[in-house]
């Protein structure tokens, strides 16, 4: 397990110590820091530090607002401004990891479909795959931006639900118009052995990348 993942797990565990009010205040800080362009490890270290401080404060009967102030957004900005930024290599590796991970599942599913239902055998268009890939990466990313903007809004729950609703709907329904209206270019029809071999290669690739992405 990498250091960052260990920090995240520890954070999930320790957060249970907070009462509801403090938990809700702290979760907003957590969401803001995690969705900002900061070095992941430095960000998680800071979040753990703040969490332990808040747990100590809670035992002294203090509220999160007493500790972090009445302006959580301004406070978070002052933290994020001072945190080291994510490097370009780090960002590219994360994108590569996400793309490889998505492709692994896709090729895996396609391999098993071919294997189990050979009669459904249809050629696959590379153009379609590329568009699906970009849509599936762009939409959740956009939803994250919306979420960060709305973290400290009063009517946040409704806005977050709308953001995720649109994301879910887009992912569910966009593939159909794409298949219908975009001409299927570069069709390939490979046997399940090839699909599953690609899956295995991508699986090994993502395992190797994981250590570099979440250091």
């Amino acid at each position: 397990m990498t250091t960052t993942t260990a920090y995240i797990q520890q954070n999930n565990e320790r957060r249970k110590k907070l009462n509801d009010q403090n938990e809700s205040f702290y979760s907003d800080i957590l969401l803001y820091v995690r969705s900002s362009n900061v070095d992941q490890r430095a960000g998680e270290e800071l979040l753990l530090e703040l969490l332990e401080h808040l747990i100590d404060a809670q035992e002294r009967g203090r509220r999160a607002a007493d500790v972090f102030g009445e302006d959580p957004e301004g406070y978070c900005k002052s933290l994020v401004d001072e945190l080291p930024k994510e490097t370009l290599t780090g960002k590219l590796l994360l994108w590569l990891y996400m793309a490889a991970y998505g492709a692994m599942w896709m090729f895996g599913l396609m391999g098993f479909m071919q294997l189990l239902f050979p009669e459904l055998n249809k050629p696959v268009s590379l153009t379609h795959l590329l568009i699906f890939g970009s849509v599936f990466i762009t939409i959740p990313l956009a939803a994250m931006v919306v979420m960060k903007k709305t973290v400290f809004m009063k009517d946040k729950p409704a806005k977050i639900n709308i953001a995720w609703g649109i994301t879910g709907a887009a992912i569910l329904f966009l593939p159909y118009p794409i298949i219908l209206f975009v001409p299927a270019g570069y069709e390939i029809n490979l046997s399940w052995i090839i699909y599953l071999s690609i899956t295995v290669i991508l699986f090994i690739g993502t395992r190797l990348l994981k250590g570099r992405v979440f250091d």
Partner: protein
Amino acid sequence: MNKSQMLKGVLEGCILAVIEEKPTYGYVLYVRLSEQGLQSVSEGSIYPVLLRLQKEGLIEGKMVKSANGPNRKYYSLTIKGKDTLAQFKHEWEALAHSVNHIVLGKGGKKDDNNDGIHPAE
């Protein structure tokens, strides 16, 4: 004058001085500062300062796993941090001396005899 503005520059020096005594983590650092009279420092406001001091290479943090308790990030001074603190002490001494002299009167003590009128040279 805005009290918090004035405090901001001094806070970095005070944090360096507390860390110099012995490596410490955020919560204890806050307690030490407020025990020594810096009550107007709000608890959370030390963290942006700690991040800035790390970025400037004056302190370094190390996560220490404790056997039964939570992980704590202990801060210690770097060589650059020690130099900066020495410089801060020097500057503060000079500044405090002159400010006392000007604001409170000669010798750094309140002087009520002159009724605020400068004595003739």
